[in-house]
């Protein structure tokens, strides 16, 4: 009972009459085949296993708990709690009523739409290929990043970003490989929301965007800016390559980018093991953006 690993799969016997192919290509197709077989099997397994929740019969567990009233109460209306670690996590949230609803909506959308697609993507496309896909999208993203570095007057970061783009586009085969990182040029993370922050625009209220999740009014405006710029970059790319009218291609690329993005974010909604996940995430998002603007 050996465990199931790619190496344990029987090697595909070479067809006797097959045209001799270059070794590298043969290896590649074998790799793809192995992963496909494995991926599809796991996908079927996962579909079979993970469908909907199983149920167990347990009348005692279904029964409501015995009535219980705590002999003392610490309910907040009785006394304001003193300043402690939990009070440090609190943040203003004027849109909270809307935000929490959108948060729950996003969680459901994630669960029923995005995650199944991401699972399939991760099973069918092997990690090295996913790395390459992610790198290509990141490489396109260097252009808005570069623009924002310039807008912030950060010439050090602009230079790094420009260098990364140049290296990765050429030696990195159109961004497929992040060779720049090996050369010590680390990816910068600058967006238009941060640029607005550097310019002194206040963050405004915390807001949960549909699909995209945590943001602020300022970061939403910034997102629109980045999105527009990115769209222009893609538009230019499509035109240059003679694909200006290839609607299917455009949608395909957009979809792939969305899936790639989601697959690289480890968060699973309502899985942090605390009923205060929304409060924690709000605190962490706002603090992280503050640090991002300061860095």
């Amino acid at each position, binding site marked *: *009972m050996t*465990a199931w690993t790619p190496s344990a799969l029987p090697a595909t016997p070479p067809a006797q009459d097959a045209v001799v192919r270059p070794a590298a290509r043969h290896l590649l197709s074998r790799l793809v085949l192995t992963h496909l077989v494995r991926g599809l099997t796991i996908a079927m397994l996962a579909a079979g296993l993970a469908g909907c*929740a*199983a*149920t*167990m019969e*347990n009348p*005692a*567990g*279904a029964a409501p708990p015995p009535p*219980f*009233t*705590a*002999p003392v109460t*610490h*309910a*907040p209306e009785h006394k304001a*709690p*003193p300043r*402690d670690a*939990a*009070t*440090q996590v*609190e943040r203003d*949230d004027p849109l*909270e*009523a809307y935000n*929490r*609803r959108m948060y*729950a909506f996003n*969680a459901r959308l994630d669960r029923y739409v995005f995650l199944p697609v991401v699972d399939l993507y991760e099973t069918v496309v092997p*990690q*090295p290929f996913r*790395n390459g896909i992610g*790198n290509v999208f990141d490489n396109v993203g260097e252009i808005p990043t570069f623009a924002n570095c310039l807008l912030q007057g950060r010439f050090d970061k602009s230079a790094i970003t420009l260098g990364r783009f140049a290296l990765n586009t050429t030696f990195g085969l159109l961004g*497929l*490989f*992040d060779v720049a990182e090996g050369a010590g040029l*680390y990816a*910068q*993370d600058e967006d238009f929301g941060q640029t607005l922050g550097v310019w002194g625009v206040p963050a405004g209220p915390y807001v949960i965007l549909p699909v995209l*999740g*945590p943001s602020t009014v300022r970061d939403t405006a910034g997102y629109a800016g980045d999105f527009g710029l990115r769209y222009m970059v893609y538009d230019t790319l499509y035109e240059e390559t003679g694909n200006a009218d290839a609607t299917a291609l455009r949608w395909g690329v957009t979809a792939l980018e969305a899936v790639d993005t989601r697959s690289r*974010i480890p*968060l699973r*909604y*309502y899985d942090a*093991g*605390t*009923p*205060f996940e*929304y409060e*924690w995430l709000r605190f*962490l*998002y706002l*603090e*992280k953006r503050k*640090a991002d603007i*300061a*860095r």
Partner: protein
Amino acid sequence: MKPAQNHHAVRQPVPAGPAGPVRPRGLALHLLVVLLLCAVAPFAHGDEALAGVSAATDGTAYAFPEADPLRATVFGTPPGLQHQTRLPAHDVRREVRIEGREVPDIFWYDRSLRYTLALQRGPAPLVFIIAGTGAGDNAGKMRFLTRLFHDAGYHCVALPSPTHMNFMVSMSHTRVAGYVPDDVADLYRVMRWMLEEVRSRVEVTGTAVTGYSLGGLHAAYLAKMDEERGDFGFRRVLMINPPASLFDSASRFDAWLSPEALGGTSADLFDRFFDQFADFYRKSERVGFDDEFLYRFSQKVEASPTEMRGVIGLSFRLTAATMIFTSDALHRSGYVIPKDAQPGPFDDLMPYFKAAAGLGFTTYLDEYMLPFLLQRQPDLTREAVIRACSLEPITGFLAHSPKIRAIGNADDPILTAGNLAYLKSTLGDRLTLFPTGGHCGNLNYGPFATRMVDLMNAEYGNPRASGTAMNSGLADGGAR
């Protein structure tokens, strides 16, 4: 009990593929994961001669680099020294719910229990893995243990701790977490169901139970219960960094977080740590929070032993806050939520978070758990409750059962000197003690991980025939 944040270590190690590692992409989400693991985590821990216990360091060189048990507990194993589990992992997240169980709307997302299956293709022994205090089936340490034992050729079922909110909401009969006899009864029932489930898919050639921290204590009780009822026939019980007494350890955490011990409030402690973290991030050359980042932060962070203890105490405190709020909302008992004003799914929970975080585990025992238990069993005493949440009642079983093995560290900060002496005298050479590592800080350090598998294999004869599944893991953890 998941003080360190090794979640990346147990995610698929980035293969040295042609494209290299992908840079993690923004959002506060990484930070969330990191901080929640750090914050929502602790259970956490002595130094004495190893006389009488089995020598942990035989054969393999044990050179865990962090001599400070508190830092080891909080920061875990440095990336380059982590045991590397194999790719790919075959774990599948599954859900089960109790038919007809009423769950308040506020917990709409937790109606089903989430657990993880990692099965072999052929016949194999099955290991149940129980999480530590407040941890889920997918906590960093859980994912590591699941992959470790799966690599070693076992079927694995990973379960959240009965003190995890998801378990409380979906499975707990009493909906009051922390009382070990009730929690173990819940676990036992759920595991029996899961065994059937696994048997319907694959052949199970034997069963074992393990768990870290509080989950280790649960494992021992599960084995005792199984001895009486015979549903599983566990042949091996592996307790990993178990506490000897939940309340001894909880009292330590509460004491560490007291204003007298801290010389300030937990707010100041929180701010000091968070500010250092944010500052480190601001000055960091790279974005993204991976193990490497955390390791560099751990080398940089300025914190006195008092503050490190405070951090461990704080993370336990936040775990307790979750338990308190969850139980109160399930009972509408009026403890931190006004009885007549239950929050809905879209209501602000901050006031209750603050109220619950102010309490701590020992207060919860006296004001909530004990009164609840007294309602059912009026002759119960505080002492009896505390004793029932320790290993003491099953000392005879522990001392004589050949199934039992325990592994831990001599400098574990959750253990009092008395706790450690108890474990040694009760378990003798069935306890493996490493000299350093704190509380679970060396869980995924090569020699510790290898030893866990060896202890399991000693009973089941190494299900992975060749034994080559283990790669010693000093390899490319930090390589870029």
